[in-house]
């Protein structure tokens, strides 16, 4: 069973619909035990870092997530919260990835948030998509710099991490649940992990 972590995030429903389209069985839950015993865990996220971290702490989900041993996928804010720190209201996050999440600073009138379809350059292989089908949908104002855990790079203002992996933790900055058939392949890539 796949567990989708239930918390005050905006895209849980979209993630659920995407899993339904893939005919994947899942449960949306905030019960620590149910999350711990799931085969895989999806940690979605749309929202603001500090209030979301507080919610996770209040519900004791921060420790639960950190200690998971099965494959975990962080999406968007979910990926940022897996880092150690976010500039968004100076928030201490979960610390799986030893990275600081930074605010985009426009240099020539680029718009923030980075919103729309942008391309991926894969740098290590957990995402099984063809090199010529590379566009995915982004909505975010903060980014994770390119680092040793980076699995895909996207350019907007500067090159940033659009996907990462460390041990059993997988993460994407874009929204696979809104990224057409490519997004479905990205979700499937994660679901194929064991």
């Amino acid at each position, binding site marked *: 069973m796949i567990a989708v972590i239930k918390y005050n995030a905006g895209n849980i429903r979209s993630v659920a619909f995407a899993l339904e389209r893939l005919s994947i069985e899942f449960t949306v839950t905030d019960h620590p035990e149910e999350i711990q015993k799931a085969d895989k865990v999806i940690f979605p996220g749309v929202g603001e870092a500090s209030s979301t971290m507080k919610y996770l702490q209040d519900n004791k989900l921060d420790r639960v997530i950190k200690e998971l041993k099965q494959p975990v996928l962080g999406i968007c804010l979910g990926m940022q919260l897996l880092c150690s720190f976010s500039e968004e209201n100076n928030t201490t996050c979960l610390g799986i990835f030893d990275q600081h999440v930074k605010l985009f600073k426009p240099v020539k009138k680029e718009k923030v948030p980075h*919103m*729309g*379809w942008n391309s991926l350059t894969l740098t290590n292989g957990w995402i099984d998509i063809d090199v010529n089908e590379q566009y995915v949908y982004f909505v975010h104002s903060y980014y994770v710099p390119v680092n040793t855990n980076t699995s895909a790079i996207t350019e907007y203002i500067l090159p940033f991490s659009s996907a990462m992996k460390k041990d059993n933790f997988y993460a994407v900055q874009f929204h696979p649940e809104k990224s057409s058939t490519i997004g479905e392949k990205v979700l499937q890539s994660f679901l194929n992990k064991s």
Partner: protein
Amino acid sequence: MLTKRIIPCLDIKDGRTVKGINFVDIRDAGDPVELGAAYAAQGADELVFLDISATNENRKTFASLVKEIATHVNIPFTVGGGITSISDVAPLLEAGADKVSINSASVKDPDLIDDLAKAFGSQFVVLAIDARKVGNQWIVHTHGGTQPTDKKLFSWAKEGQSRGAGEILFTSMDHDGTRQGFAVDPLAKLHELLSIPVIASGGAGNMQHFLEAFIMGKADAALAASLFHFGELKISDLKKYLQNNGVPVRV
């Protein structure tokens, strides 16, 4: 590279698509879910669904339609039409909409923009502005472009941004329905003034018009309705044309 977005707009009345005829590859062009999925498969980057029958009774129908759309469509979509309050919006987001567009109600009550942005985040809030040129001024109109207001396009767009709108959807009433091209000059000026994305709307008649909206109007996205619905222009052909002319698009 961030690509320019092509957005088909579907008008919905009593749960059915208006104007959606002449589509060869789908069974029921009046079905917004099937039409939306067909556009997504053709390469549309986002969709907009406008409830043009927006009465209280129809609103419930619309929310259940939004849920159907969210279940079947795998790209982002915006819903709008007659939204006047947070309580109108919550069921739509609950049903799976990615963004809502607000128009007339925000002119009457600009705090609605702040309230929605605070409650759901700026990325959920698309401020739709209908304007037409009166003398030298672009005057904001409401109620489908029929009622002039005391607001001017540029100052209202700027105010919308500072109140928390995440995008501006600008329709030139002078161009809408003419098929003579988008209002390129005010689009370029909006781009200069704003730090949020601008969607061009009104006037699309051929592929070159989209190129002009992106190159000269500096628009981030372009929206059209009948041109796509009548099957006159295929999104895949439009995107190839734009790509051949140096506009970054998702193909």
